[in-house]
């Protein structure tokens, strides 16, 4: 610390900073390093570490995805672009509401600030709820971040056929299949009847020692067909396979490039969702405070974090959903 900490009354401005000519008493001079409050500085330093964190994840995703020989299309993995776009819209709105909360707090309109803060919390929770719905859509089709829950195989080859055979040979599954075979046709839906017939067919095919790759592809298509372009989000366009008709069956499925996709998708969106949850926790805590000008700094810093979370999603959305 080279700058003198004490100014002598006869010196005018020699210590630098804000000398206003004191008369007879000693003053300590303080010169802030940066023109921003400590809380804001720390938040920005933290955000730069978060930028590096997500830059690492996003950067590796970009390299992995564009270096892959095959990458699943969004409709192959039950990814819905409209839902992603709506989530983007929700987060953008929540960024606006947090900024409005800050403005209201600075203007000492504490009630209004609380309302905007609660709106931010609600929108953030909506985002997480929609994410949970999306995750459920993946899980119900056997798309998980990793084995053993994940059912994805890369190619319809002999190893895939052997995996299907193993699953069909599990004791619990054998029992349930026997039960299924004995169920009269009236007790099954049309989908399930068709699936049951298809199941007989694939049981023969995977047991056949002379099986060819094309037959394995047929097996894969029967179990979980890759939906055609334009099938869009869930509902009528959604192609059904055996795994859809009998969710307990959970036969291995084939999605070329699907394992890498699942790993990166769940990692990126999972970390992002954790950050959203932390942000929501912060807002929930802030709601307990009086949101006036004295606390505007706190709200601003929480807002900075929240905008960053929105920023990450702005990049995640096209990279994951649209590319």
């Amino acid at each position: 610390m080279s700058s003198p900490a004490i100014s002598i009354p006869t010196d005018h401005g020699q210590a630098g900073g804000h000398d206003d000519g004191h008369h007879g008493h000693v003053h300590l001079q303080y010169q802030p390093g940066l023109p921003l409050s400590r809380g804001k500085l720390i938040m920005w330093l933290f955000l730069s570490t978060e930028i590096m964190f997500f830059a690492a994840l996003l950067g590796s995703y970009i390299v992995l995805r564009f270096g892959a020989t095959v990458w699943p299309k969004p409709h192959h993995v039950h990814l819905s672009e409209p839902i992603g776009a709506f989530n983007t819209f929700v987060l953008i709105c929540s960024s606006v509401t947090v900024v409005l909360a800050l403005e209201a707090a600075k203007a000492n309109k504490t009630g209004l600030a609380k309302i905007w803060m609660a709106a931010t919390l609600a929108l953030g929770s909506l985002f997480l709820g929609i994410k949970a719905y999306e995750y459920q859509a993946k899980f119900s089709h056997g798309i998980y971040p990793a084995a053993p829950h994940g059912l994805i195989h890369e190619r319809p080859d002999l190893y895939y056929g052997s995996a299907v055979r193993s699953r069909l040979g599990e004791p619990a599954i054998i029992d349930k299949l026997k039960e299924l075979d004995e169920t009269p046709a009236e007790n099954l839906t049309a989908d399930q009847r068709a699936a049951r017939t298809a199941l007989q067919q694939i049981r023969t095919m995977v047991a056949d020692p002379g099986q060819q790759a094309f037959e394995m592809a047929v097996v894969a298509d029967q179990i979980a067909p890759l939906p055609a372009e334009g099938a869009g989000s869930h509902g009528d366009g959604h192609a059904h396979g055996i795994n859809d008709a009998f969710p307990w069956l959970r036969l291995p499925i084939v999605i070329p490039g699907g394992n890498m996709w699942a790993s990166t998708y769940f990692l990126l969106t999972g970390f992002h969702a954790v950050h959203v949850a932390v942000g929501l926790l912060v807002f929930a805590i802030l709601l307990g405070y009086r949101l006036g000008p004295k606390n505007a700094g706190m709200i601003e810093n929480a807002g900075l974090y929240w905008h960053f979370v929105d920023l990450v999603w702005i990049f995640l959305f096209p990279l994951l959903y649209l590319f």
Partner: protein
Amino acid sequence: MTDHAAHDHAAGHADHAHGGLGKYIAVFVALCFLTTMSFLTYSPAWPWRDQPQVGWAFMMAVSCTKAMLVVLFFMHVWWEANWKYVLTIPAAMMALFLVIMLVPDIGMRNRMVSQERAIHMARPSDLLLLEQAGDAGHGDGAH
């Protein structure tokens, strides 16, 4: 001490004249517009269907614009002093550097593969095979 408090007050409230509801609403509308624009590549009017790279470049440009709007206006960086460059420029350099460094080992990993990987890795021909299987099975690929 009063100087200190006054300066802090000034730093914290120098933005009193900045921001403003009008600007925030304008940015919000721009963000919504840009989000819709990112779907432009899906519309029949998009002329570069055969070159997906054009679409990707367009989508990244849209994302970067949205990001800049959020950073500059919602995060107030437009009105901040030069420290913003100290934070952002090195981070941006590192992000770019990371991607470039990963390209030889990870981005180009499939250019020269071992026999074992070649046996097990997915190929575009597998997708074609699955499509053919679907057509053979049901005609339109759906039950």
